């Protein structure tokens, strides 16, 4: 595999390739998603890539009725809220992601701990080429 920086740009590039990648500290084995170039546990800087299965559970969420202009442009509004959540992955790493397949008009029915699976949403239009990490009910 080509050498890539442990960076946000590499993370986004991997998402485009439908891979969820993080970095792991060679010294203390701490694992980070998105990847970090510097270990915040032992302050080491020797990292290696790890690929995650993209399975997780819902650790926190919100259903947003008043979104920013970019979400409004995607058709979201008070009558059609979207869900953003924090997903706990394998080995305790967490990612922020959009959550699909839940009833955003009945947020009280959405269960904390809900098992989720990653999918990759390739966005068209203004930010063509960008891929968003989205999770849906497993």
């Amino acid at each position: 595999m080509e050498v890539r920086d442990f960076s946000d740009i590499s993370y986004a590039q991997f998402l485009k390739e439908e891979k969820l990648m993080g970095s792991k500290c060679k010294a203390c084995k701490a694992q980070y998603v998105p990847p970090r170039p510097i270990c915040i546990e032992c302050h080491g800087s020797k990292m290696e890539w790890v690929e995650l299965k993209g399975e997780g559970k819902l650790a926190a969420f919100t259903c947003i009725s008043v979104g920013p202009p970019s979400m409004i442009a995607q058709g979201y509004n008070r009558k059609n809220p979207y869900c953003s959540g924090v997903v706990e992955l394998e080995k305790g790493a967490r990612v922020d992601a959009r959550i699909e397949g839940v009833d955003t008009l009945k947020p009280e029915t959405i269960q904390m701990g809900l098992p989720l699976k990653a999918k990759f949403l390739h966005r068209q239009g203004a930010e063509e080429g960008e891929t968003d990490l989205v999770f849906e009910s497993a």
Partner: protein
Amino acid sequence: MVRKRKLGRGVAVVGAGMSKFGMFRDRDSKDLFAEAYLEMLASVDKGVDPHDMDALYLGNFSNDFFVHQSHWGPLVSDLIGLTPKPATRTEGACASSALAFREGVFAIASGFYDMVLVGGVEEMSKRTTEEVAEGLALATVPYEGRAGFTFPGVFGALATAYFKRYGATREHLMDITIKSHHNATLNPKAQLPLSIRDLMRVKIQKAQKKEKPLPQWRDEKEFLSDPRANPPVAWPMHLFDCCPISDGASCMLLVAEEIALNFTNDPLYVIGMGQGSGRGLHACKDLTYFEATRYAAKEAYGMSDLTPDDIQFAEVHDCFSIAELIHMEDLGFFGAGEGFKAVANGETRLDGPKPINTSGGLKCKGHPVGATGISQLYEVWTQLRGKAGKRQVPKKNLRIGAAHNLGGTGGTCTFTILERR
């Protein structure tokens, strides 16, 4: 480990001012800062010659975005006639002016300056609600923004984690909202000086006028549970869990402790200061507290040799109802998972044992983000000097008050303790 902090020399507050907070179509940042500044000058009991001010530190988060103008240090310095003396802008999202206050304190404590003006300003209401949401979201961590999180969304998500862990509900947050609205009715500078009861009455009168069916709310919580009266913004955060969009300014005059009595016989002393930084939702240690607030509190308590019980009242950063709850616990006023019970028991009301946000808080006083930190300290100043009028904390020997300010997703948190001697 936090080393015990101390100032190189003592620093005192000898004057303070704050503009009225609100949404002002015909007033801009300079008008609002001038209002705060002139009140500050008048508040210095023995008077002050503005020529003696050595420097300005000014908090501003994002007038760049909100009114398309940056570089506010010299603009304000020129406004008040301080040029060519130095003016420095500080930015820490919604904690921008708490950082200006700290820089002012450090500059005097180091011996470099003797008298420093610190302040904050923000002008947000000329943008639409959606644009303001976008502008504020610039201070989230990038992964949050990419996942669609707004600030109400970030705090909504934290609320779901807190509810799950401790069994609190939306109803508990309503106690906080009702209290903030009550306190704001007693604050002439507040943006929303209306109690929830007042708002219910207004809505019923409107329905009467339009000959529509009258709402049947029996109490404040029924009103707040009605999605037509209190629609969701970012569930579980509803409209009345969120602070408004605001314009406003605030400032304080700091001097070296040894010259404080030249300006007033009743200065306040900076006895505790702390600041922490944090990581955002994906990397924070836990979703039910803010590590940066806990760190800031530890520093400030260590410096002052005080414990949470010694703080007689506090302003706590309540950009959202859940934020007030979590931060009260992080500051040690209540144990983790205990805050909502204390609120339900009335402990944080104006007449309770630990009054919180006597000003009405960000929720009702308003939250012009760059002005907020020093406006919180302005409330502490007003209360400690016994000038809070109808909202005066009814305690004898009021001596120690504090203010907690947060920026971003807990990215910047400060805690500042003032003492009246």
